[in-house]
């Protein structure tokens, strides 16, 4: 992913259009990585989250990397199929300048032992400086997931 400077509208003259274009590309890349991790490298999934991230999963709230790690381990194996993807850059006023993306997905998932179900999910991704690299990394600040038929 490119450097923060090229992306942040504060730091240079990147206009709104460029911002939007970049968001689309990032959201596509993110969704590929996230769901691949969810399906095939579940143990690594929690690393995509900020330490203080929150997940609301069908009304169940999970917070913090440790709890997230346990939560994802407890879920059966999955096969996700993403059919819809949309994203928006989040307005600076809400994030105090911290570059943030809203990513919205929808599709179907088959958890082992369950039949296939439709779901909606959305994420707030935020760009963070990384201790291990020059380049900033995206981290999930919040994650909201619900089955379409959660009440049945």
């Amino acid at each position, binding site marked *: 992913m490119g450097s923060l400077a090229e992306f942040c509208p504060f730091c240079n003259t990147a206009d*709104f*259009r460029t911002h*939007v*274009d970049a968001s*689309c590309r990032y*959201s*596509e890349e993110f969704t590929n990585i996230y769901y691949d991790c969810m399906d095939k490298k579940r143990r690594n999934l929690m690393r995509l989250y900020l330490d203080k991230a*929150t997940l*609301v*999963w*069908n*009304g*169940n*709230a999970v917070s913090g990397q440790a709890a997230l790690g346990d*939560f994802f381990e*407890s*879920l*059966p*194996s999955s096969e996700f199929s*993403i*059919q*819809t*993807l*949309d*994203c*928006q*850059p*989040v*307005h600076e*006023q*809400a*994030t*105090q300048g911290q570059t943030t993306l*809203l990513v*919205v997905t*929808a599709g179907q998932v*088959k*958890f*082992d*032992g*369950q*039949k*296939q179900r*439709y779901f*909606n999910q*959305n994420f*707030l991704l935020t760009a963070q400086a990384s201790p291990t690299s020059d380049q900033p990394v995206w981290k999930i*600040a*919040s*994650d*909201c997931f*619900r*089955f*379409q*038929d*959660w*009440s*049945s």
Partner: protein
Amino acid sequence: MSTADDSRYNDHDDRVGGQKVRNRKGRGPFRAPMYSDQGPRPRHRGSQRGGGGPGPRARFDDEDGDVAMADSNSQDGSSQHRFNPYGRPNRRGDDRFDRGRRGGGGGGHRGRGNNKGGDGGGGGRKNWFKMSVPYGKKYDKDWLITALQNICSMPFTPVHYHVEGNRAEFFIDDSTTANALFKVSRKITDKEGYKVTVLMNPCPPPSFLQSELKPADLEHLKQCMAKRFDGSQQALDLNNIRIDPDLVSQNIDVTLNRKNSMRAVIKIIEENIPELVCLNLSNNKLFRLDDLSELVNKVPNLKTLNLSHNELKTERELDRIKGLKLVELWLERNPLCDYFKDQASYISEVRERFPRLLKLDGQDLPPPIVFDVEVTPAALPPCKPSYFCSEEIKTPIVGFLQQYYSVYDSGDRQPLLDAYHDGATFSLSMPFTMQNPSRCSLGDYHKDSRNLKKLKDPTTRFRLLKHTRLNVVAFLSELPKTQHDTASLIVDVNTFTNTLLSFTVTGVFKEVEGKSRDSVRAFCRVFVTVPAGGTSLCIVNDELFVRNATTEEIRRAFVAPAPTPSSSPVPTLSAPQQEMLSAFSLKSGMNLEWSQKCLQDNEWDFNRAGQVFTDLKAHGKIPDVAFIK
């Protein structure tokens, strides 16, 4: 026309068209046919090919298809039906025929992929030809057809006349007519002095014939299947469903070896009885199991499957469904059964796909020895309704939503300008559908739907993101008028900081005017907001996902009276209505207000309202406040 030579070939070569190949004196199948030396041929069993075109592989494919469809479209007379698979005795008599075909069918098996458009020979015993008229684009259709008809020795009906490039094309469904048309090529001169050429090419049945079942038919099919479903055994019997009187009497054609029919059936199973355990698909002329592969995901509990009395030619078909954890399988009376040299290899091949199988063709098998690696999959955490995080957050959100939707549903969305930040953004998305948008009931939303999975052009992606509150509200004002079921909204608070409060709202709404009036939609909407003084919220990002509501969602929608007073006058109740209301209130225990709403929503049908009430109560869907008198 038989000679001594021919009769020898008759004896040993049962391949369809075997004789024809010989008559063509060593011409290979792929060599371009010389149309000039064709004439109308006497019809023999099997497919009559007008030209060398596709070659023997497709010929076998079509043969497979034709055989499978032998009983359909019997309008063209039963003289063509040389075999009746229902009630036919042991097929071993046809061994030779099968083997001959299987020899070529090995290739045909691969070739089948190519001919999938044929899909079982949708036209039954019809042989399709595409007639094309080079440069026919310039002709008026009526002029051309009339001119051809005038000199063609046979009457013809052009099917799906259309223009392709410079050509005019149409389909003809039998070889005699096609040949007759071909014969008039270059016999007509057009107004400009050019001769009108007519070419013919054999082709698979045109795909537009594979029409889907209409909703009314699907409903009948569902009823028919319901009758064939045994709830105590979780078993569904679809044996020979094509001739079910309920379907026949309604002229509904459900032929399970056709993709559309099988898909429709599986969809009905998926939506109504996904816990199905036993399924009987015998006597349906199934010759492949591709379309059954959906069962693996959609009907995971299936343990018993009956595929007997079908047309499966190779055990490899079972690969398509080997994800099923079958315990009992019926395969007898399929051609594939004849190809095993002994029972042991038959069992072995079947078990390779279904290691847990205990019974095959009614016979017990020795139980398999398994490895104890299978772990019962973990259960999912229970699903809960709204997550507000805390009362302090809940109050402003609830207040915000009440206000927002009361304006949104009011008919004039302009006041929403106050709810949005100057730099706000909005976008809309929908589930991906293969359907033509003009046929899709969500057509109003389709042109503005922003699905980055499908939309790749950056300019379009940018255009579909509405930016600035003026643009956002202008766009929202153009969306269909709605009435949201605000009492049933579910809210999940994603995250909050000093400067950001983000939450996801899911629920249903009704469209209240226009051609989609009364359609119920379900939505999932993410709001990212910033504080706006006091407990007010100001929207900076708004993303709306809309889909059609499911039957279940529609059933449960709009039970509670809307919290905001409606602008329409409260109707005065007639005396019988008053009486019904008191009786209903007494019986249900609900107060008058809620009882009245329930009755009104069910058109003052006491029994129906009672049923709806009982169902909802059983599911815990009626809030306590309904019972407070």
